């Protein structure tokens, strides 16, 4: 087992473990902290694929900005009381069955799919470097890139419409 493989398994275990911890915590603040952990592990995966730009963006945007936002929101709402309503037992059961079915389908799909052996380039790939990413983004993918500006613009207009005092 090479170093890359060891790192991969460690990071994977970390990602799955911390995401499980995140959804099982009762206190939302702990959930958010475990979510940060998950994002760190996933950023590590990007680094293994030599996608440095994605790594740093994921770290700055998700673990940095969005998580801080989450924590602020949690601080603003009152969490001292046990506000979470008790859920219906049958609803939980139905949810577990539905989720289990989805898991089964995905496991079945992934089990006998012939993923080509070199789908992931570990270490030596250079598509994730900023220069190459920029070239791909502004040549091949320039139309979707520009179109996504409409999406952000509409989200901004929406924020103003919702937030402005009447």
């Amino acid at each position, binding site marked *: 087992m090479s170093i890359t493989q060891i790192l991969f398994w460690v990071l994977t275990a970390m990602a799955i473990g911390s995401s499980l911890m995140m959804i099982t915590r009762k206190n939302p603040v702990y959930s958010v902290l475990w979510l940060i952990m998950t994002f760190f592990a996933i950023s590590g995966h990007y680094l293994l694929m030599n996608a440095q730009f994605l790594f740093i963006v994921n770290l700055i945007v998700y673990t940095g900005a969005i998580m801080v936002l989450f924590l602020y929101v949690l601080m603003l709402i009152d969490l001292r009381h046990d506000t979470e309503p008790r859920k219906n037992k049958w609803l939980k059961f139905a949810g577990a069955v539905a989720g289990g079915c989805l898991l089964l*389908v*995905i496991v*079945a*799909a*992934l*089990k*006998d*799919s*012939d*993923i080509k052996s070199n*789908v992931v380039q570990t270490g030596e790939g250079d598509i994730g470097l900023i220069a190459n990413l920029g070239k791909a983004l502004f040549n*091949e*993918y*320039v*139309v*979707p890139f520009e*179109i*996504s500006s*409409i*999406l952000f*613009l*509409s*989200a901004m*207009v*929406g924020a*103003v*419409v*919702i937030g*402005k005092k*009447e």
Partner: protein
Amino acid sequence: MNALLISAVMGVLMMFSSFMLKSKSAVRNVALAGMFLILVANILDTYGWHLFNIPTEGMMHFDRFSLFFNSIAFACTFIFFLLSARDMEKVGINYAEYFSLIFFILCGIVLVASFQSLLILFLGIEIISIPLYILTGSDKRNLKSNEASLKYFLLGSFSTGIMLMGITLLYGHAGSFDITVLIKAGEKPSSLAIAGLLMLLFAMAFKVSAAPFHFWTPDVYDGAPTVFTSFMATIVKAAAFIGFMRLFSTAFYSLHDQWQMVIAIITALTLLIGNITAVFQQSIKRMLAYSSISQAGFMMLALFALNGTATEGLFLYVAAYSLATIGVFAVLIKMKDYTFEGFNGFARHHPFLAAVNTVFLLSLAGIPLTAGFLAKFYMLKAAVEAGGFLWLVIFAVLMAAVSVYYYFRVIQAMYFKEGDAPVSMEVSRPFQWVLGVLAFLIILLGVFPNALLYWFYF
């Protein structure tokens, strides 16, 4: 491409007009002019006059299918603006911004109708959804509107997540977002591709509110301000259907046998739940929400059949359903009381409005000589031609018979019951003219469907 760029620019222009123009009628006129410009630009595009030439690297393809649908959608939006733009003033103070959001939604509609890459499909669906979440919640003082917006946002984001997961699995199978590559890869289906296909199917079924993914529809359509419900239930739903059709008739066509049964079950469930639940509604707005589910069931028949008749029928259905529903909603907005009793004696006080409303309702129910009848006829014909699933066709006819009950309850209230049918606002003369034109169009399409379908080929 013309329409996409011009509607994006119009969206920005409306943002500027919110502080440059003082009067609301000026804002409305700018929006109407812009809408007309988009419609004309799209028709020019159809006949080879491209105002812009942008290489899309095969990510979008503006063929007759997409351009023709765009024209229908823009024409319906234009009529919607003519009828209901005045009523948007009452929703809140951000009058120009509502128009701006609607123009952005039109951008998304163009993308969804003409995508050639799953990336563009995703962007289009998102550009349609996000402004809609906001329009749903734009009546900020109304608790029901807030609830509807939040519910729509949460469920919509969840379904988008499922869609992304499906796209990821398909990418793992084919190694590309491109539809032409997906078609080739579909000849050797793997379970990865089937799982991805099913996830995309569920996400799209959510967007068109097909059962069992319809639970958000009644609450959201009921909670949203009625003007925006009118837009959401017609033009946006039609666009989602065109995207659905485009995706499944190209990328997944070679897997048709794999998913035909699933679509047949979804269609039957949608028809059953939509129609049966609509019977028990007391509020007309909620009844129309369920009726939009049941009409979606009929449009699903086109996806099930996937042949020439189905494509023509879907266009006719989209036009007939959108025009009639916009008309019914435009009349409903003027009413004070949204229950069936609110329409009691409407014919005596407003004979003209009652008459055109009857035409719209007859079309929705699928009575001959209206566009709705021929639209339903095309759908059933396509399903029969596809062969093998006669039970589905018989079931659809039975459900269409059930739908007559709740549409005729409105007509009965208008004509055969005593009451004073309180109207909350003045009904202007131009409004009546537009409604009259709308009713005329519906009857015209019901007699000569080729008045519309001709333009699909020539």
